[in-house]
């Protein structure tokens, strides 16, 4: 196991599950994500950008969900995959246990984490210092992540969202 779940996080998770008093990341924060290979770099367009009509509905929704980041100015999104899981990522799993991939919004520095356990994805949101910020915005809550990653079963297979990522490998 390369990443350990801090004790404090475990407590936070339990409270989130049992009481849902406040949201907490389920996935752990990988401190060394900066060393992981970058498999994708893309721009999150600003709030004012009108997407071309042929953009898949799902992508439009994803953009709309997070274009508030960086005060709606748009920012760079970099995807880092855990070095051991690049092959799994290409095929959308099946995933072995452990943190799989992070998506990093350059500004203001938000790290989206997708971890797998028993083949199932779990999610977390941290700042670049590893602080759990999932309760700071509704769209950062793990449950909200699931509303795309777990529910769009054909786009996010096994919790990773395929289309644009796979395209990068071609």
């Amino acid at each position, binding site marked *: 196991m390369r990443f350990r*779940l801090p004790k404090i996080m475990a407590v936070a*998770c339990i409270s989130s599950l049992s009481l849902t008093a406040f949201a907490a990341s389920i996935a752990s924060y990988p401190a060394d994500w900066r060393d992981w290979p970058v498999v994708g770099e893309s721009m999150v367009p600003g709030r004012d950008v009108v997407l071309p009509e042929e953009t898949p509905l799902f992508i439009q929704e994803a953009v709309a969900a997070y274009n508030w980041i960086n005060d709606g100015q748009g920012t760079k999104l970099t995807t880092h995959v855990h070095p051991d899981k690049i092959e799994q990522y290409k095929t959308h799993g099946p995933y072995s246990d452990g943190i799989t991939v992070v998506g990093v919004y350059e500004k203001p520095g938000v790290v989206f984490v997708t971890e797998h356990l028993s083949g199932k994805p779990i999610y977390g949101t941290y700042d670049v210092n590893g602080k759990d910020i999932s309760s700071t915005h509704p769209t950062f809550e793990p449950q909200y992540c699931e509303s795309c990653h777990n529910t*769009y079963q054909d786009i996010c297979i096994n919790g990773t969202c395929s289309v644009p990522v796979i395209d990068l490998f071609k």
Partner: protein
Amino acid sequence: MTRFNLASRLKISHLLFYSHLLLVMWLVFTMSYNRYNSEWSTRISHAVELARAVSNPIVDLVSLSASGRNYTNIRLNNALALYASSDRLLFFTVQAQSDFSEHEYSFAWSRELGDAFRTNLTFEDRLAQQIEIEALEQRLNTAGSDDVKLNFLLNRGKELLQRIEEDMGHTKQYCPQFKRITAIDDYYLDEDNAQLLLKQDLRNVAGGEIILSFDATPLLNVKSDIQFQLLKEASLAFLFSLLLIIWATRRIVKPLKNIALQMNRDVKDIDFTGEPEIERKDELGVVVRSLDSLAKKVQLQIVELEKRSAIDSLTGLGSRFLYESVKADFVAQTRRQGKYLGFLICDLDNFKAFNDMYGHPEGDRVLRRAGLTVQSALKRDTDGAYRLGGEEFIVLLQTQSAEDIQQIAVQLCAQLEGLEIEHLGNPGHLVLTLSIGVVCAKGVDLDSNVSMDQIYELADKALYRAKDSGRNAINVVHWKNGKEVINE
């Protein structure tokens, strides 16, 4: 004549009536039918528009969800609230293709259930979920540091299994009802089940469709309202037209009937004066006026013809015309023959009363019999009987003696009385009787300037006296050298 007129009247009235009735029925029917159609189709398209407006936000949501096969979106609270927002929407089913895989995407929603559910779950799906849960449970049993995460996943897994089982149950319970929805094109009004089905295409790339069922009860109520309203209006229009037709038919046929009745009468009696038809400004008025003038012309001609006819048409005796033509010669002829001239004016007693009591037709019949009686009394070629008009007959005789004349007069009275024709208006006799004024003149006593009119006058006076003496009487005047000798 009568039957012919009646038949033609019926034909015309029936023709007018039925042809117009048919026309009106056809008009009212087609107009009502067209109005019904346009009204009804307006209502339907309105209802469809409404249904479409209701379904549009649902289509948006479903299209997005279908695109990436998202079954969570479509059962979030705000999604359920969206479906339930129009209380006309009863249920809908979605059948679509994922934009990103070969998987199909299908779910349904039912107002009765108040929830959406996947409709394509199989026992394999359930089994797979059960196996997943078992795997997680096994891992939890072998203690490790990931317990929190595993518990999280286990709960999620159990929730999912429950969902799968619920959805399978709902599919079993509600989907037979959805099976009714067969291939429809845009929309379909299922009147038997009072539902309006609307088909909308989804907007995801791979496509799909949503079929929504709306409660059509209000729409169907409107339908029967329209039907009732139109029926009311149609019957009103029909009734009004019927009255109009009857009025028009009568306005044409009634005058025709009147004309026929008039034309049916004896030509002499045809008289259109006072008939309302003669005042009409239309074609019928023209016809009636022509008929009237035709009848008047014919009547004049008949009078003229009668005047010129030798035979009195009623009695068969000689006419006034004939009398006028023979009277001039008669005196001279009698003189030449050396015979006696007998001039008889016969008048039926109280005949005006007879006509009043028994009617003119009966009066005419009696006149005819009286004429026959008078005729039968005449034996010689030279004898002549004439009817100058009314109930007055003139008999001209040439005899050997004055007695013969008197005898004939007596015989005439007796024969007529003998007919025993009841005449209650003839006091003292109670049967029809005859009074006769007679002038007897010896031919040689009549010089050439004696005219028949003089003799007539004498005879008339004699008749007056006979009547005066109580009727059924004879008064005889003997003509001697221009002097009369009265002889009862």
